[in-house]
């Protein structure tokens, strides 16, 4: 893991963020990615504004598996629900899953990375051993096993957190705890280089404590890196949720895109030629992953032109 200099020590975050956004828009990849994200975000903030409240088996009005028509622009599923309605509401669910999983991932990754890098020594060795363990572990297989177990441990599946059913929360947590390792690695190497800088030394000399330095000096200097990393993590989280849903670990009552694909598969939609059942959620997934990857690598490029990483 090579380390590069971060250019911006201690700045007011807002100017930095706006400047960054400006630079991002100037890059075609960043612009396209941001545009897609803007649309998806709008859809997921107020899906009901665009397509009305989410349709259920009870409120469905359409015929069974009908192709796109004037009444149902993207056709219907086997319960007569509008695919447009489901896909748009699915945007929200998939984005929320991605968002929370990313927050968990980045939080764990950043804390471990900063502490490990700053404190160093034995703690660093132990933390990095754990990180290595999660880094090489095939996280998806671990998630396969963890999901039913955690679901059992948290008990009653109908409890809700932020309006999200427990079953989904479990998936989110599993994604979070299985994918923070690479973030921790990257943040750690950045922290290592910052620790050696003059302004950190100065702070230490005037008697600042470790916690203070990490919060006030290290964190602001790795925050951009954290953001860039978070964006890429988001894409991965959406993909993982899709795959977990696809093998049957999703929640049928909350139609994320992965869950919609799984439902389409369950009724044999591809073989029936019911393309409208799986194309919209499929396109949604590709778009969101693509957008986040574009923005993420553009950011990465801007902040850190010399560092290479796996997408």
């Amino acid at each position: 893991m090579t380390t590069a200099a971060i250019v911006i020590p201690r700045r007011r975050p807002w100017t930095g963020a706006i400047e960054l956004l400006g630079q991002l828009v100037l890059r075609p990849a960043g612009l396209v990615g941001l545009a897609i994200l803007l649309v998806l975000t709008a859809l997921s903030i107020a899906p009901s504004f665009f397509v009305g409240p989410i349709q259920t088996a009870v409120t469905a009005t359409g015929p069974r598996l009908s192709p796109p028509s004037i009444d149902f622009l993207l056709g219907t599923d086997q319960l007569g629900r509008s695919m447009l309605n489901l896909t748009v509401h699915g945007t929200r669910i998939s984005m929320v899953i991605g968002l929370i999983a990313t927050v968990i991932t980045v939080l764990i990754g950043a804390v471990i990375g900063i502490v490990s890098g700053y404190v160093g020594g034995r703690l660093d060795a132990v933390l990095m051993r754990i990180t290595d363990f999660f880094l090489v572990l095939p996280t998806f297989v671990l998630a396969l096993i963890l999901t039913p177990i955690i679901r059992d441990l948290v008990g009653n599946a109908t409890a809700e957190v932020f309006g999200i059913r427990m079953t989904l929360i479990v998936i989110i947590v599993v994604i979070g705890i299985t994918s923070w390792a690479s973030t921790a690695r990257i943040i750690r190497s950045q922290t290592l280089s910052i620790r050696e800088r003059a302004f950190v030394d100065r702070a230490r000399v005037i008697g600042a404590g470790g916690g203070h330095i990490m919060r006030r000096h290290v964190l602001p200097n790795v925050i951009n890196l954290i953001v860039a990393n978070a964006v890429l993590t988001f894409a991965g989280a959406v993909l993982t949720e899709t795959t977990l849903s696809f093998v049957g670990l999703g929640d049928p009552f909350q139609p994320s895109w992965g869950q919609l694909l799984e439902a389409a598969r369950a009724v044999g939609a591809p073989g029936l030629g019911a393309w409208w059942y799986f194309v919209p959620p499929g396109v949604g997934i590709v778009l969101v992953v693509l957008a986040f990857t574009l923005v993420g690598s553009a950011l990465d490029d801007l902040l850190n032109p010399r560092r290479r990483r796996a997408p």
Partner: protein
Amino acid sequence: MNRSTLRARGARILMSAGLAFAAIGPATAPVAAADPLVLNAGTDQDLQVLNPFSSVVVADFEAFTLNYDTLVGWGQDLEPVPGFAESWAQDGNTWTFKIRSGMKWSDGQPATAEDAAYSIQLVLDATAKSDASADGYYLGQGYLEAYITNAGVTAVSVPDPETLVVTTEFENQLILEAYLPILPKHVWSKYSLDEIASATGATPYTNEPPVVGTGPYQAVEWKPGEFIRFARNPNYWGLQGAADEVIIHHFSSPDTMVAALKTGEIDYVRGVLADQFDALKNEPGIETVEGVSNGYSQIAFNTKGNTDGYKGSTSALTDPAFRVALAWAIDQNKLVDATLGGYGEPGTTIIPPFHTRWHVEPDASIARTFDIDKANTLLDAAGYKKDGQGRRLDKEGNPIVLRVTWPDSEAQHSTDAEFIQGWWGKLGVGVDAYVTEEGKLIEDVTPPPGGPANFDVEIWGWVGDPDPTSLLDFLRTDQIGGSSDSFYSNPEYDQLFLDQRAESDPVTRKADIAQMQQLVYRDAPYIILYYDSELHAYRTDKFTNWTIQPSVGGTPLFGYGPRGYTFLQAISAATPAPAASPDAGSTPTPSASGSGSSSSGDITPVIIGGVIIVVIVGGVLLLRRRGSVSDEE
């Protein structure tokens, strides 16, 4: 046949693929014009075992009924027909079976009454051992013993090699319905009861291919997860089917399975989905069969509620009036349409219409329809008042919120639950709907002292036998702690069960069984949601004379016994051209030898080895190159 597992009706379907574009040309013809003539069947279930005592899923039963004969077989309409025994006679508690003379096992050894006696004795020994010791002994998965136990068999004897005498405890006919394969004594007696019985540990006898049996086809090759291949048994005593080989393939994706049927890679499919079935109806060269299921999907209430240490959420669950009121608020026709795509019938009593001889409809005085108002009236009348927010309160004054759950292996019930949530909501009864992992659910529905009985309402299903006994069994008091998942307990019902079992007169027996159906309908420990159909389809270009069993509502294969396979005839005149496949170069050998020498795995290690070598050599070369480049610098 006792397939009455907790609906081992099919591993959840796993995956999908394959869109038949409207513009596809006519179906390409199937391969393998040359010998051997292979019948390729597809099912969504994976074969799990070849030891009949460990059989659970339909695929397991299908495999052992091809390998072995039962003592008595099932005919066109499930009537008793010659099986291992040619004829039989009953004299009170004594049955005398005449075993076919000159019959041989597939390995050429004579098949005699000794073999039949051995097979039944195996079960008697296991039962005796179980009764004598407290260590819970049973044969394999324990399904097959019930046939012998319910028939009240106490002893078997062999006066001569062609005669088998069976003594029963009480006069009854159930021995004719026993789904017990007759096994070759000269093969199986090499193994101890422990080895044959072990379902779980130690060194179980797995009955690996090639299997020795008297059935029409013998298993010769098994690739778990992929297929099981059977070769013709030239010694079979009955009709020889046209197929030289039968291969039953497992598909984890119904979409791939139906695609394979369309391309002619397989000839028969079991477990087609509703919408696929609709589409297949219009496919040329393919026939669809909608069979009536010998089973049902039900809502089971935790009828002990929160009493006696059971962990139901409300005492209302113990009240038949409450359960009946909820049953009025279920639109079963809607569920058949939405969940089954119309392929099924709304359910009424616990014996499905498949059992034409035994099924009755509920009496007019207790029959229910879908009527929310009526349900509300009934709840009011039964003393379940609403609070200010419109929530129903139980007798203790707590709002009623029922937990409705179903196993993850039956994902389709989420649709049922969603509807029920809506309908019961109109009664002021709250519904928490969630899926539960199957193993966990089994634990949840286990009653004290073994488990918590921690559920309110469970959606699941059962599948029955040619005889209705097993479907009547689950609601007996004796089954609480066993297979009962409603904890229904009614002494009248329990007595009727024993009466009908020992009843030789079909008319009296029917009266008993009818009364049992009415009792359960009236008390509603179960609400039978629907009887789902069996959807099968087959190609007509390779075999003909597909025969369904039973004549009304039956299916050609995966029925009761191997009849369907033996009736098949080849369409030899219309030998189709080979499809676009490299199969043309193959030279299949006659299969009767059952050598099972198809060497699928032979070359794989070589290829893998090659791959690894290429990777390593390639990698090293590439990197070496880099090394030398940097040296130059």
